[in-house]
């Protein structure tokens, strides 16, 4: 019985992520536009774009192969599996045992690598540049991400997101400096990913149209929501419902999740300084924060 409920919650989580990803993107674009003194597009504009694109015929270059045609589906699937593992409104979902942070990062890397391969396959200048830039940015953020996870795992005793969230919520770790530094490193990585990746992704998407393009845009929106959810779980580990609880508690969890993601969306939009992200600087800042986290952790001898 509890397995069935866990599966139901998992399914609800999936539908929530799929439905809310374009909305969250619309909200953050709207806030950015208002900050730049523009009216901005309606919040539902990304959804409208997806529906419009889904109705259009796709145009493929005659020279394109099956790799090029299947890549958006595969990249979207990898992002989807990653999104499946990051809890939103409830913990203890069916896939909670799989929700290790390292495979989640690996699945996002898989999506990126597949899109870079497809961009090279298109044989165009912009595609190749986008692919190369996306992979360079990946080197700037991936090591820092692993190092931040390393510090978090030393603090919480696990790399599983569900278990990590449980330890952080229990307050055994508290608001200690190493934790804050590791989370700051994660924030820098998230900002770099969400701010700089769209430029590279635009290059990689530039030979796509119709439904494949819709999948790419939806996948990018899903990645933004995934990062916000990940940060929300670690920075503000409160308010999650238990998967075995009542539907009312799920509703409370849903409201808490909305508040967390909303706050993070606003904070992200306000982060104006990160407009031009240079991979070398991201790398140095994020690595610096993650190393400082480890250093203070060892100095305080507080490993779990």
């Amino acid at each position, binding site marked *: 019985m509890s397995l069935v409920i866990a599966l139901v919650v998992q399914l609800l989580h999936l539908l929530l992520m799929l439905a809310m990803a374009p909305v969250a993107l619309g909200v953050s674009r709207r806030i950015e536009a208002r900050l730049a003194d523009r009216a901005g597009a309606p919040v539902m504009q990304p959804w409208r774009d997806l529906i419009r694109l889904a*109705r*259009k*015929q*796709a145009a493929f*270059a*005659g*020279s*394109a192969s099956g*790799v090029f045609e299947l890549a958006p*589906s*595969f990249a979207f*699937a990898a992002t989807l*599996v990653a999104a*499946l593992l990051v809890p939103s409104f409830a913990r203890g979902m069916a*896939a*909670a*045992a*799989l*929700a*290790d942070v390292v495979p989640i990062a*690996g*699945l996002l890397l*898989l999506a990126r*690598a597949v899109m*870079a*391969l497809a961009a*090279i*396959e298109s*044989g*165009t200048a912009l595609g*190749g540049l986008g*692919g*190369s*830039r996306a*992979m*360079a940015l*990946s*080197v700037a953020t*991936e*090591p820092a991400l*692993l*190092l931040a996870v*390393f510090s978090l795992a*030393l603090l919480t005793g*696990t*790399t599983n997101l569900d*278990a990590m969230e449980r330890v952080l919520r229990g307050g055994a770790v508290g608001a200690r400096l190493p934790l804050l530094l590791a989370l700051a490193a994660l924030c820098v990585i998230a900002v770099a990913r969400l701010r700089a990746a769209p430029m590279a992704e635009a290059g990689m998407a530039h*030979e796509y149209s119709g439904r*494949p393009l819709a*999948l790419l845009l939806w996948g990018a929106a899903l990645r933004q929501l995934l990062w916000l959810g990940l940060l929300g779980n670690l920075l503000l580990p409160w308010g999650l419902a238990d998967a075995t609880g009542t539907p009312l508690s799920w509703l409370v969890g849903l409201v808490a999740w909305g508040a967390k993601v909303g706050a993070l969306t606003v904070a992200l939009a306000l982060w104006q300084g990160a407009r031009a992200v*240079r991979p070398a*600087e991201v*790398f*140095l800042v994020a690595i*610096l924060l993650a*190393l400082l986290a*480890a*250093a203070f952790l*060892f100095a305080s001898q507080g*490993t779990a």
Partner: protein
Amino acid sequence: MSALLLPELAAVAALLLVAGHWLPARASAALCGVGAALALLFLLAGTTASAINLPLGLPGSHVVLALDGFSGFVLLLLFVAAAAGRAPVLAGALALTVLAADEFSLVLTLEMSAVAAAVLLREGGRKVVGMVGGGVVAGLALSAALALPTAGTDPSFAGIRAHPAQGSHATAAFFLALLGAGGAGGLAPLHRWLPRAQAAASASGGALIAGAVPPVAAYLLIRLVVDLAGPAQPGWWGGVLLAVGATTALLGAAQAFRADDIRTIAGAAATLHGGLVAVGIGLALVARAADLSDLAAFALGAAFLLMATQAISGTLLALAMAAAETGAGTRRLDRLGGLLRGMPQTTACVLVASATLATVPPSLGFAAVWTLFQALIGVARAGGPGWQAVVTLATLAVAVAVAVGAVAAVRLAGIAFLGRPRTPRAAAAQEPPMPARAALLSLAALTLALGAFPGLLLALAGPALRRLLGTDLSDRAGWLVVAPLPDAPGLAAAALAVLLILATLATVRAHKLRAAVGHHEGAAWEGGAAPPPPWLPFGDPATQIGPAGFADPLAGAIDAATFRPARHVRRPWRRWRKLSAWADAALRPPIQAALTALLAATIALLLLVVLA
């Protein structure tokens, strides 16, 4: 039962060594298959260690051959790689190296391996001399390392194990073993030969140099440093291995993402994984010195997974690169491109091997690196303050090497096999003939299967772990889940693979709903550029990204981060050109300079605070 398997395995190895040159390719592949089956049988049917003495060798001594769980596991990997790569003589010599259980026969078989590898080189002269000479130096170092404990009185492994060296003798033996085995396996600073030999070897025989030599070298290192040296050795040996391994991994990754020769890239990938294996061995030594044999078994299990990655996926990558060289007539990245059209099956195999090099789930490489990462966390948690600083820096190096390896994998698979052909010859590339293609496809299938079920490999490595450390991973590595601690959540690679397949199928299905939308074909849009003229049948070469261009953003970032002058800064009219360019690069981004200083200060702080 298992006592009978040693003579049979030795006979297979000797037959390959002696007759391999004359055997037809299928017969030697079948013989390697028999060897793999015998090794698997040994691992499954209870691994009673056995030894035989042969009345050969120097006066007053025997040649001792022995088989235990550890050598059985390595023989399995070796024969699987050898069944695909066509170098039976080298395979036989390496198998005898693994079976050898005394100083004399170990050195003899190692020299035979060096000569067998030198024969595979296409170019004669200096490279052959270098290979044989390197083998002699490695053999001498290992011989000295083995002779130190017993002063040569009992040169068999059993005798050395009974009287392990102590104090400075043990330290000298450790460094000699590191020199010999590290040199043979391509660890820094002796890492340069492996990619070069890989590039210089014949197309059919080079795969074993990248795929089988490094695991056998890692076997020698583990045998000497973990097994024969005994458990009562200091933990700083592990620290040395961590430093050497992390450096090797970084150097291998840096070469893999910048090299222009596809076979050199395959060799550099082997260097990268060899460095990670050394990190795993180092972690096991640190954990064992702290009396944490469960953690040591986990770290050594990571090293075994990485050795399997080298033997299976590394051989696959090297074989596929050899197939591309034969099929397209060149091994330069900037003359390849679009091989997918002519060689679809080889391309599929390359994508599988690239997934392992890029460490994306659910590949074999990901399972191995995930296990290594958990071992790093475990040692950092358990070790004293000094170890924590060392392990943190090693984690950083491993993470950077792995991330750069992902760029190398995308660059190799993308530039050589996808996109438009860069030369007419590449456009006319052809698949390899059937036996070679079957080897590629079966290795790719094996890589995929083991990536989804890494627990099976760890179960096969159980006898080896029990033999070396007295404990295994049976409580942590099951069929479906590999976990760092019993009853803890871990990596469920098979479940991830199933989810990924389901999600892909669902997405493709949803994509095809309302098929009336359909699609149409035309020329590539290319940002509105005019279609290429008819005399450019493969499009304009200048508008397609090349190998140098793809590596450029990362290379530029690395140059900037290390204050190397950017390549476009040229001031030929200044004598102090170098200095001014250096100052230019250092001063222009002052933020970056400050950040790097802070980074250095943090590393210093990390070292000072925890050591104090």
